[in-house]
């Protein structure tokens, strides 16, 4: 009996830590960042509750797995969580998320939350997460390089142009092409930039219309093939992610880089000469003359349907996504606000030049989110399987991936 008694005592002690003394603690599962979400959690803690953070894995796919497994087991310890947009639909469809109440919705609309952010946060006409930050990619370039190569960056540039320029001048183009979600972000932007979509009619679930094999998909495959087989491809292309692409860009062979907003402050401390040499412009066009569709990323804050403190968590989430909170987070992490009011946070104007902030907002407006479907992880995983490694991509790749996605969705093929 002694061990049992000890166990009972221990669990009693543990539960005592959680609650009885002081206000209830809300646990917010966050994606790793440089302290922005911690700062916001502290700011939004009140006399009624304190918000503590727990860090999820680095990789978006791993974040999804950890959260989904806990939620499927109805873990009451999760109150708030930072969710990557492509997985919002899956979580909402499984009933993991509490609906955002009407007054919070009005507040989000009032503060000028971007349409793309609202769309990504909506599943079956219900708002299921609070848009917190909205990120997008722009084309970063080395001023010294474009001068040498003689490219006019004041006009929109195409992928063909930047690959050729890098190729002719012994430089490397930084992209994300490891076998992970980031690679699909790139593919999606290329496909959307050519006026196509990876899939349509997402409401049909597993019977959705897979359209990656259309002309737009072929154009995307051409660009990837062109880069992968040219001298402009970094040696680590097939394992490149945001970080390694940033290193390529910062090296002597750096020329162009597509990457998220936080790159602006990335070199300030480690390589000030690179920081001075960074230029920026709109994401490159897939097809000349057709407006580019930059990638859309970000984080929405979801409230767990299984939380013991759901009402408090909903209240807390409202504070976490206030314009000021979005501004504080953006200033600390470089992850841009999800609303126009958030962009008014004074300190942002000190860190980022005015025209860059404008470019960010314009890009978020034009951005093409990944299709909202509860089966996104299957679609994305299938694309990664067929389109990776990049050097294997050719004009047949889109058709192969269409067949494979359909088989995987119907459960006829392993992923």
């Amino acid at each position: 009996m002694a061990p049992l008694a000890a166990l009972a005592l221990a669990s009693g002690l543990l539960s005592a830590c959680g609650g009885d003394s002081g206000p209830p603690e809300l646990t917010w599962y966050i994606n790793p960042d440089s302290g922005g979400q911690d700062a916001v959690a502290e700011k939004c803690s009140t006399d009624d509750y304190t918000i503590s953070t727990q860090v999820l894995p680095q990789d978006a796919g791993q974040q999804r797995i950890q959260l989904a497994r806990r939620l499927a087991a109805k873990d009451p310890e999760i109150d708030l969580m930072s969710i990557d947009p492509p997985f919002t639909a899956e979580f909402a469809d499984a009933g993991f998320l509490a609906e955002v109440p009407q007054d919070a919705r009005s507040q989000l609309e009032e503060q000028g939350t971007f349409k793309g952010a609202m769309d990504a946060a909506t599943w079956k006409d219900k708002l299921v997460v609070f848009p917190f930050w909205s990120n997008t990619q722009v084309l970063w370039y080395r001023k010294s390089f474009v001068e040498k190569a003689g490219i006019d960056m004041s006009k929109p540039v195409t992928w063909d142009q930047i690959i050729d320029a890098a190729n002719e001048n012994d430089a490397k183009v930084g992209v994300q092409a490891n076998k992970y979600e980031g690679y699909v972000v790139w593919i999606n932007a290329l496909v959307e930039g050519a006026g196509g979509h990876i899939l349509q009619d997402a409401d049909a679930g597993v019977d959705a219309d897979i359209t990656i094999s259309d002309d737009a998909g072929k154009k995307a495959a051409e660009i990837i093939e062109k880069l992968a087989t040219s001298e402009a491809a970094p040696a680590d292309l097939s394992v490149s992610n945001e970080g390694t692409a940033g290193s390529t860009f910062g090296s002597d062979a750096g020329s162009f880089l597509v990457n998220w907003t936080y790159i602006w402050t990335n070199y300030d401390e480690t390589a000030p000469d690179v920081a001075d040499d960074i230029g920026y412009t709109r994401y490159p066009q897939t097809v000349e003359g057709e407006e580019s569709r930059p990638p859309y990323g970000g984080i929405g804050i979801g409230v767990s349907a299984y939380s013991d403190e759901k009402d408090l968590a909903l209240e807390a989430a409202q504070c976490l996504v206030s314009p000021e909170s979005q501004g504080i987070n953006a200033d600390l992490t470089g992850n841009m606000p999800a609303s126009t009011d958030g962009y008014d946070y004074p300190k942002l104007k000190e860190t980022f030049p005015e025209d860059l902030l404008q470019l960010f907002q314009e890009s978020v407006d034009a951005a093409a989110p990944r299709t909202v479907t509860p089966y996104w992880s299957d679609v994305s995983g299938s694309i990664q399987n067929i389109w990776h490694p990049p050097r294997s991509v050719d004009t047949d790749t889109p058709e192969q991936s269409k067949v494979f996605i359909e088989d995987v969705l119907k459960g006829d093929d392993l992923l």
Partner: protein
Amino acid sequence: MSTTTAPETPTRTKDKAKAIASDRTAAENRLGLKLVAPAVVLMLLVTAWPMIQALYLSLFRYRLTAPDDRAFVGVDNYLTILSDDQFWKSTLTTLLIMVVTVAVELVIGFAFAMVMHRIVFARGLMRTSILIPYGIITVVSAFAWQFAFSLNNGFVNAWFSWLPWIAEDTNWFGDYWHAMFAIMVSEIWKTTPFMALLLLAGLAQVSEDMLEAAKVDGATWWQRLTKVILPNMRAAIMVAVLFRALDAYRIFDNIFVMTKGAEGTQSISFLTYRQVIEQMQLGLGSAMSVLLFLSVLLLAWLIVKLFRVDLAQARGEG
């Protein structure tokens, strides 16, 4: 020169045991059963129950994030898996890793075992240093080797670029064979000490008298190794091969850390992980786990039969 093996001790047969069973031994046996009962029940709870549940789940289409969609599909999941090329490709990759790593480990492990057995000075230090890699967690070893082979900050390219097939910018995780090489190096580095340890136990069983006798008869070093030492270690070698082969067949950590299954390097365990954990396909994933379990059983049976491993003898119960 003919092969010399130590005479086998005759094994006690069941009949004999029965004949000498007195009331006292019968009572002891009953007590023994009672004493192991709690452990057996516990084992059933923690191992048999999940296995039965996996078997049950494998007959359903069941996804954790779409629980309402659950439906009984019979053996469909098994048919899907067995007719899928990815399953067979992963099986081949897994078998390749198993055969190559076990073969290399056997050779290096034997050399290490000889060193540990024969060394006179700094014996403790030497044995400890050989065993260190085995004490390191596989995930840590995988990360260490991933950094070593990394294009951006690894030392392998920098140190070995004088070799004709390695350049300053060789991307070790950029194609199948390079990636497989890196994965196998990590696997071999980490588990060779285990192999060496099992072989050391076998070496210790080889009688010094026989070696002395062979020496007196004028046997060379090579003859003593192949005609005396190895034949007498057969049981230990086979057990080492069996253990390592089954371990290697379930390889997961190195692949997960180093390539995440990219470039066709996914093993059977990794493919199973993707179905159960990433896709949350409990039905399909359970079917894969069942197949993985059956293939491990088959492999164990094949090795035991093919190499005529006598497990009882290897445990010293002979």
